[in-house]
């Protein structure tokens, strides 16, 4: 027998001939993502992203371009994904750059699919303006533009909105490790700095 047949036969033998009917699992937690009393979703998002030692800039649509330029802080080599609807002076577009070429880039600017207030997370599903996954991974600074309207309360709201077959990257703060005596160190393999630009109004 093939390994497939053997494993499936072992599963069936373990479960026995009498199958219990499928049970609907209670989902009482859905839609109850917690917000601390008096907190607004966007304020909480900012607070929680900063809690992860990421930088947050709040701006209006009118000064977004300036805010992004400031967030880039003079990074010499900047890459932008296909479909990014922002003017980033001097940036090179992602023209199927190799990993080695990306490694020579200082910063990347992307948009996001949504932000999660409860956990301070930005989620990318790598659609237009977000780039393929390597783009927001290899450069050392990730500037991520999030619209206030994209911020949801919590993880259950986020999962309800996301497309399961698109690749996703959930980012909560910069790359970090606590593997050496549980001392948290930012920046191991992913971007060492995360700068979220939040667009309001």
């Amino acid at each position, binding site marked *: 027998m093939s390994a497939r047949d053997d494993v*499936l036969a072992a*599963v069936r033998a373990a479960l026995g001939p009498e199958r219990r009917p499928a049970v609907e699992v209670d989902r009482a937690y859905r839609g109850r993502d917690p917000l601390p009393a008096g907190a607004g979703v966007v304020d909480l998002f900012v607070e929680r992203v900063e809690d992860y030692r990421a930088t947050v800039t709040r701006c209006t649509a009118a000064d977004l371009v300036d805010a992004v330029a400031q967030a880039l802080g003079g990074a010499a080599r900047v890459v932008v994904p296909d479909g990014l609807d922002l003017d980033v002076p001097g940036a090179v577009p992602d023209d199927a750059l190799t990993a080695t070429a990306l490694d020579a880039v200082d910063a990347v600017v992307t948009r996001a699919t949504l932000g999660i207030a409860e956990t301070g997370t930005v989620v990318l599903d790598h659609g237009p303006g977000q780039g393929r996954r390597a783009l927001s991974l290899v450069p050392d600074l990730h500037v991520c533009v999030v619209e206030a309207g994209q911020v949801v309360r919590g993880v259950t709201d986020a999962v309800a909105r996301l497309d399961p077959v698109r690749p996703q990257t959930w980012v909560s703060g910069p790359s970090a490790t606590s593997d050496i005596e549980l001392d948290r160190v930012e920046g191991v393999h*992913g*971007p060492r700095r995360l700068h979220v630009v939040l667009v309001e109004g």
Partner: protein
Amino acid sequence: MGATFVGMPPFPEAARTALADTRLRRNLGHATATIRAKRAAVVAELDDWEDLRRQAAAVKDETLTHLDEHLLTLEAALTERGAIVHWARDAADACAVVAEVARAHGIDEVVKVKSMATQEIGLNEALAARGIAAWETDLAELIVQLGDDLPSHILVPAIHRGRSEIREIFRTRMAAAGRPAPDDLTDDPAALAGAARLHLREKFLAARMAVSGANFAVAETGTLVVVESEGNGRMCLTLPEVLVSVVGIEKVVPTYADLDLFLRLLPRSSTGERMNPYTSTWAGVTPGDGPQEVHVVLLDNGRTRALADEYARQVLRCIRCSACLNVCPVYERVGGHAYGSVYPGPIGAILNPLLKGVGSDPVTDSLPYASTLCGACGDVCPVAIDIPGILVHERVKVVDAHRGDRPKAEALAMRAAAWGLGEAGRMALGEKVSGLVGRLPRRRGMPGGRGALSWLPFPGSRWTGARDLPTPPVESFRAWWRRAGRDEEVRR
């Protein structure tokens, strides 16, 4: 490179060695106390934590009850999205699949995302035997691999190492594995992480194939999920041309929507964070983004053995968060190596006997006893596995498996005790002897100020070798009753 747990001594012996290592105990005590406090703080933020645990347990149980159906759904979804699905009965099957994929591409070096499943099957050693180098890219796993050491914690495998030891490992071992450590490397954690970054980036940029596990596999959509902190996972899952993921068959969840539960429970339980820094999900192949050849190996390796135990199959709910390790008074004192397995702590004490079966291997048979049954592990488990109950359940199985054996010293001692306590005259004699023992010089204090004996002559040394014996009272109750109690009763 890479040690294995093969030939480890059973728990009591390994524990004795570990207990004598004061540095290990200091590192562990600090680490577990820190994670415990962080976990407690972020769990307290959710007022529906108990609901989440209950519902996560229900989702997992429901999935396990219909596991064959969910696996077939998963296989179909993965195939539809361009992944190649393999099945593996055991470690040998799984390692052969991974090696075969590498061989087909002429690849002799792979990068790895930290994964319990690939450690469980001894993948690195199996690949090395076929001339394929497998590089661990999680910082702690790198420390363990370069140090030719064994992991001692599910989440922080190098928890037993201090910063100066890590510096020494990097200085002496990194060069043989690729880019050497900088000459001026200090033992500052940021400097050590920086050295690992440079060393591994070379490997990420050159790697053509990666191997990962998965925290979850969504049957309905073929979505795999990897939860991590450092970005090494993203590097492996994104940069190489070929990706092979080894996934235990218990990792399946029915629908994408089920992830909301587990993505709330797992980070809070494991690292004590509201969310881990990076979570990656992918379903098969995404044209133009990431590996263009994606394999998934569905691994049994004893999981169906555990599934066959209708009560204990709840062990397969485990999401490998390691919360049970961090609250366990036994783990905190002896560390992970004493369990002789990649799965240490309370979960290892039940998972190993359930995956491997009891009765043939003394290391596995010793594990259900590596517990005080205090119950803390069951209380923190985010999927509400009744770990204490299963420990007792597995003890029964171990005893049953050895019914035909020559009785052990412990059984003989219990029989002798039954004889001695079974008749008043024999018991009185025993009390006299124990009163004399109580007059022996006391070597140590027990909590509460009671004296303790830390050494007895053979065969008592078998007991005191690992435990203190509270000093017996000099005067037994019955002796006291004869001397004082009856008089008092008469006086009343």
